[in-house]
């Protein structure tokens, strides 16, 4: 028996721990997202003033980050463990640090640091201040006090914790390649995903039909508008996510120029903002 947690045990431990902290343990969202922040369990749920605690694994789809499965540190598809806590507890740093203890990190025997990192999600009209949490120089978690989401100032402030599961596993298992991670028993991360990385990199960089994607982007945008017109911010928001993913694919195909980029991001942000506004409006009690 190895003396390190398997990849799946890391997930299970975090779920267990955050469940004990009163989080709803949720599941990944059903469409591609670039980060757990995009999941409505974070994006929409942090807008209103009702308490909310949730934790979930989110596959993060980042087409441009793929390296054909050849680079031991880069993936176009990886996992985040996302925690959202509203309102931000006063001792949230300690609560977070205890999760590392649960994962087997002896805090006094390591060099754990909170290193400034201001987070901004331009497509979501969101920003916050916080840190990257380092363990012995390794970036383990993004720790952010959300200030604004969907262009809306948040009150109360939510805290978002995003664990990079592969990095943490590589650290805990002392592996030099993500593909060597022990998922469970005799199965490695590479057994599960190396081929995926190779194929998806080919698709993302070389194969994806850009004409189709451009028209998808426009269609999704239009469908989002229709949903908003029908007063349905939840379906509308799904189309924001689809727009965002189409944009990411076009970006990895290299067909979006630097200046066009800003325009596309603004279009997605605009839709996200309107979904957020409508969602929030529908949360207010209807006046008799």
């Amino acid at each position, binding site marked *: 028996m190895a003396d390190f947690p398997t990849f799946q045990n890391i997930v299970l431990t975090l779920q267990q721990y955050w469940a004990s902290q009163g989080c709803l343990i949720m599941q990944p969202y059903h469409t591609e997202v670039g980060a757990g922040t995009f999941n409505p369990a974070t994006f929409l749920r942090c807008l209103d003033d009702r308490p909310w605690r949730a934790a979930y694994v989110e596959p993060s789809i980042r087409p441009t980050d793929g390296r054909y499965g050849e680079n031991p540190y880069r993936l176009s598809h990886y996992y985040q463990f996302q925690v959202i806590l509203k309102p931000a507890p006063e001792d949230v740093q300690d609560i977070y640090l205890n999760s590392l203890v649960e994962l087997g990190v002896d805090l006094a025997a390591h060099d754990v*640091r*909170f290193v400034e990192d201001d987070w901004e999600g331009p497509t979501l009209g969101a920003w916050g201040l916080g840190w990257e949490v380092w363990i012995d120089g390794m970036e383990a978690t993004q720790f952010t006090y959300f200030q604004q989401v969907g262009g809306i100032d948040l009150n109360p402030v939510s805290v978002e914790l995003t664990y990079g599961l592969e990095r943490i596993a590589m650290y805990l298992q002392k592996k030099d390649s993500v593909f060597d991670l022990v998922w469970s028993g005799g199965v490695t991360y590479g057994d599960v995903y190396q081929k995926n990385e190779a194929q998806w990199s080919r698709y993302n960089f070389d194969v994806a039909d850009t004409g189709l994607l451009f028209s998808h982007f426009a269609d999704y945008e239009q469908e989002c508008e229709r949903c908003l017109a029908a007063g349905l911010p939840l379906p509308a928001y799904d189309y924001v996510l689809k727009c965002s993913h189409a944009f990411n694919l076009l970006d990895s195909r290299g067909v979006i120029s630097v200046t066009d980029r800003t325009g596309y991001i603004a279009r997605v942000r605009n839709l996200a903002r309107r979904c957020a506004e409508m969602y929030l409006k529908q949360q207010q009690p209807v006046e008799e």
Partner: protein
Amino acid sequence: MTAAASHRDFLFEIGTEELPAAAARSAAAQAGPLAAQALAKHHLDMDRDSISIWVTPRRIAVYINKLPVMQQSQEITDRGPIASKAFDADGNPTRAAEGFARAKGVGVDELEVREHDGQQFVFAVSRKEGLPATAILHEACREILLGINFPKTMRWQGEGMRFSRPVRWLAAKFGSETIEFEIHGIACGGVTRGHRFLANGPVPIESAAEYKESLRAAKVIVDQEERRGAILEGLALEAGKRGASFIDPAGELEEVMYLVEFPSVQAGEFAEEHLRLPARVLTTCMQSHQRYFPLTAEDGSMMAGFLYVMNGDPASAPEITSGNERVLEGRIEDAEFSFDKDLATGVEAMRAGLGNVVFHRRLGSLEEKAVRLEALVKVFADLVDLCGPDLKTAMAAASLAKADQVSIMVQEFADLEGYIGSVYARLEGYPSDVSDAISEQYLPDSAGGNIPVTVPGAVLSIVDKADNIMAAFAVDEVPTGSRDPYGIRRAAAGISVIATRFGFDFDLEALFTEAHRLFLDQKADVNRDAAIAAAARDFVFDRIQNRLSDDGMPVEVAEAARAAGLGSMLRLEMLASALDAFRSQPAFDDLHTAYFRCTKIAAKAGADLQGATVDESLFEEETERGLFRTVAEIEPEVNRLTDSRDYAAALAAAAGIRPVVDRFFDDVMVMAEDEKVRNNRLALVLRAAAMLRRLGDPMRVAAAPKKET
């Protein structure tokens, strides 16, 4: 118990979640003046030198050695009616005086008569006895805490306070007495916290004076300067053990000292095989993000090791170091992966791919940029008479200069642009002078930073910057306020420094005109107004003026030099320096007086003499002819001297006109009855003034503050 002391030490600590290094540094600079201001406001007198400010990532502490236990008592005066209205002829108080005394709550017999603005008024004077400091220190603390400003702040509890990061505790001690209060729900007490991991938990502060040592026992070195010293000492020691030197080109020490509370310097290694990577790639892997300090051997070559500053328990160093080594190994391997991919692609293929990268929406791709750079090198070579191998090298470098913009390395580490392109060119066998020029194209990359050392590098750097500046003007995106998205202020400053250092004497507007024409030739969607070339030149001249004034030259002197209407940056700067030196010499007074007398009378006359010429046949007096002759003699001499850029001598020669000007004004009645004679005399003095003004505006020079001698 001893007699009550008149002074005690004071401590106020703001406990925070981890502050960004820049915020900590900024707080360290602000807290002292804020404390001095707050305490002065509350009449607690102390010496500015008795304030110490200590800042770590988790705390901002104000410590005052000897603060009075009592506020100074104050005299409070209120001015009432004028004395003559307050007392009648017999000296009895009037109703006005009684009413005033009543309103101020003093007896009418306590009113005092004092002078105010030269008149006698009655005053209600009362004395406010000083309160004990303990009764008011919480107010001072509040003012310090709320007075600290950060460029970026956050909320963490609804509408509560804003700070760089959440404030989690406050502590204040006056001697051994705790100052208790509350701000935005955060209680202030007498307890601090130790190192987050090595001495976690509350640390009671027995007295203000014991604060520093109590924290030391709790593994916190609270004084940033002590931490800096310890880190520097550790770096030197660990490097020395390895026969190495540590380097810190990115200046990470200033960051690192604010990232740790309990620093110790540790050493790590990486695989020797990575030394095949270019030095700056390795340095970037170590410094950017990780903030490690690379090690170099005696000959300056990289060693396969690094130093880092740990915040953990030195007893756990081996485990912590191996973690850091693994992270670095990963970063280097990742860079190596990109490097090898780029090498496999090759510089030519990258160059061919520039058409796919947009330079600016309205200005086409980097391919067009590369074409313009080559053309501009030729234009520039003509302007400064550059030919031979330097021109050939600059042309070759211009063609390849932007190739690395499509490399993976530059996408990953933008700071390596230029450098990595030069490495790739060299590895592919391009001549080293070509690769050197490529690597120098972005210099200087900071104010006062290094500039190119090779002529082709200087040429490439100038034309690249000229193209960028012209681009901003051509698409009407000139910097406003703090917005300078294309960094053209820095480009403008850089251009002038390089021109001056290399002695490039050329008409800047001509370069911009050609740069503008290239955009038009490429059918770019740009502002077609030819005047933007002059606007771009003025923009650069503004930067020169700013730089000279930053270097201590009065802004009036730089402005005076600009008034000469020179087209060359080199000349502008040389004239400004010459004027600055000349203005403290007695001869400057001659120049100034001569110019002043000539221009004053012309201004007074208000005559429109544009294009007026001097007609010798209208001269009536010998002194008129004398001035005319003198101007005709001095002018070619001044021109000769300015042509050879000997502005000091030119100024001295021009100042020589003074006696003749004086004699002219003594003898000649300029404002003669006869209009023709009068206008001829005015034209003569204006001609003299115009000659002097080609060496700058003496009136602006005279307006500059005098030099201290």
